[in-house]
């Protein structure tokens, strides 16, 4: 008698406790860093190997030729290498932007620190482009009010660095007083809007170029600066670049 009731209790217990599927949920979370303390999975590592080899050999693909070695410290306020980069951005971005939005680009501004390597004399390969521009930054075109172009001008004068520019001419005295400033061949109109091509890094406040962020209107064109350089090199049989008068001290 007693056994039966015990079994009935067990049966009821079984029915109730195990058919119930409502849960209370608790959680514990941890975002884990992947660094060199982790030994790589060897199967994965060896699977990647042939892809890596093929890729490395493709990096050797010849795109152009350079007669000289160029570095970003070749000049005071502008350099051949920086000018080439800014001009390449202008030359290759302009038609894409025009086709998409029916507007011309007025000028280009990149940053001196963004030139990550010299361009060596001799063959220019895909790897050269990856060395100069290892980052994934893309071109953005920002619509900028004239007043913020003035801030950009002040920034350039203040910095006195060879930040790559194209489509602008700037002449300053040693004390920083501007003697001449032209944008797209004309004097600055504070009430006008200008279209400036730059990198998404600078647009997002990189190198304290805060004048970019003050403008809400910008256009992504999905063109990496590195890809742009590769395309530019491919267009040129031999690279012919030099420093010029785009940003100089008055004599």
């Amino acid at each position, binding site marked *: 008698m007693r*056994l039966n009731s015990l079994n009935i209790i067990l049966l009821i217990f079984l029915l109730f*406790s195990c058919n*119930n599927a409502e*849960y209370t*949920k608790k959680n514990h979370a941890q975002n884990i860093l992947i660094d*060199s303390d982790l030994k790589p999975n060897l199967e994965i590592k060896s699977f990647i190997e042939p892809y890596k080899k093929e890729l490395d050999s493709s990096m050797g693909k010849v795109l152009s030729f350079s007669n000289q070695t160029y570095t970003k410290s070749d000049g005071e306020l502008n350099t051949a290498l920086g000018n080439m980069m800014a001009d390449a951005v202008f030359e290759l971005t302009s038609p894409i932007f025009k086709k998409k939005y029916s507007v011309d680009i007025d000028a280009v501004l990149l940053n001196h620190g963004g030139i990550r390597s010299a361009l060596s004399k001799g063959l220019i390969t895909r790897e050269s482009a990856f060395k100069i521009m290892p980052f994934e930054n893309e071109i953005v075109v920002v619509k900028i009010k004239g007043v913020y172009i003035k801030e950009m001008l002040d920034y350039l004068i203040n910095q006195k660095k060879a930040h790559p520019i194209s489509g602008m001419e700037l002449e300053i005295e040693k004390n920083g007083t501007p003697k001449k400033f032209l944008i797209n061949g004309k004097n600055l109109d504070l009430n006008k809007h200008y279209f400036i091509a730059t990198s998404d890094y600078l647009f997002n406040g990189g190198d304290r170029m805060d004048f970019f962020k003050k403008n809400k209107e910008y256009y992504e064109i999905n063109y990496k600066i590195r890809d742009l350089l590769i395309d530019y090199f491919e267009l040129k049989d031999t690279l012919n670049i030099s420093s010029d008068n785009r940003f100089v001290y008055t004599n």
Partner: protein
Amino acid sequence: MERRVFIKNTAASIALLSMGLPISCKNVNSKKITILHTNDVHSHVEPFGPNEGKKSNKGGIARRAALIQNLRSTSPNTLLFDAGDIFQGTPYFNYFEGELEFKLMSMMKYDAATIGNHDFDNGITGLHKQMPHAKFDFISSNYDFKNTILNEVVHPYKIYFKDGIKIGVFGLGVQLDGLVSPEYYKETKYLNPVEITQDITNILKQEKKCDLIICLSHLGYEYENQNKISDISLAKKTKNIDLIIGGHTHTFLEKPTQVLNSAGETVLVNQVGCHGIYLGKIDFYFENKHKFFSSEVIGV
């Protein structure tokens, strides 16, 4: 004699109790499901080199695979997800068009991924071309692919079973207009994420009786413009979601953000930066609401 029978039967009952009940009910009473996730890996197959600033010597898929393997050995009931932007960022993508990324994710036994804007970087045909290399599901609920090559290749939601727990997963993508060229995404239609979430989570919760609902999102963590839909605003405006695994804004969170949904329940929002430097890990413990166990055993 009677005493002997009593002892024997009681012993049998106790044996039954200890064999049947505690084992089966222990499972029901406390189950652990581990969710691992990445986002915005952007073709970072190899670890970063030594001169990459904060990222130096970090990341790398072979290491991630080892970590995942370790975690699976202690938590067999694991699901592995990616929140999009698998493609674009290293020459591996430019050269092999995403084939290697998908093959490696398959080797790591990813369960599913949603689609990020950069996954369209070789066009919708470029994405479709690589899909045979992916032995995992693609889930997107608010991209209507009906008039595209991805029709019926991408799932609006999927349900996974782990240790008797039913896990419903759906996916949300960012608005493509202005981000991806129309010639790339072709006839893909972007649908309102909030409306889609309400519909899909109703199906997953009410109809399919899921125990856990996860959203793989490439909407972005949060925006200054409050009108722009983000993971945080989605979590607030909807209900039924337990976890949003985010991407797109490359936001690194030390731990998931807790947000109250429209029904006042907690939603976890997580995102682990970008480039495969971190792996997100969330353990969910499921406990039975009705605790018959202790009282009944004492009764016996």
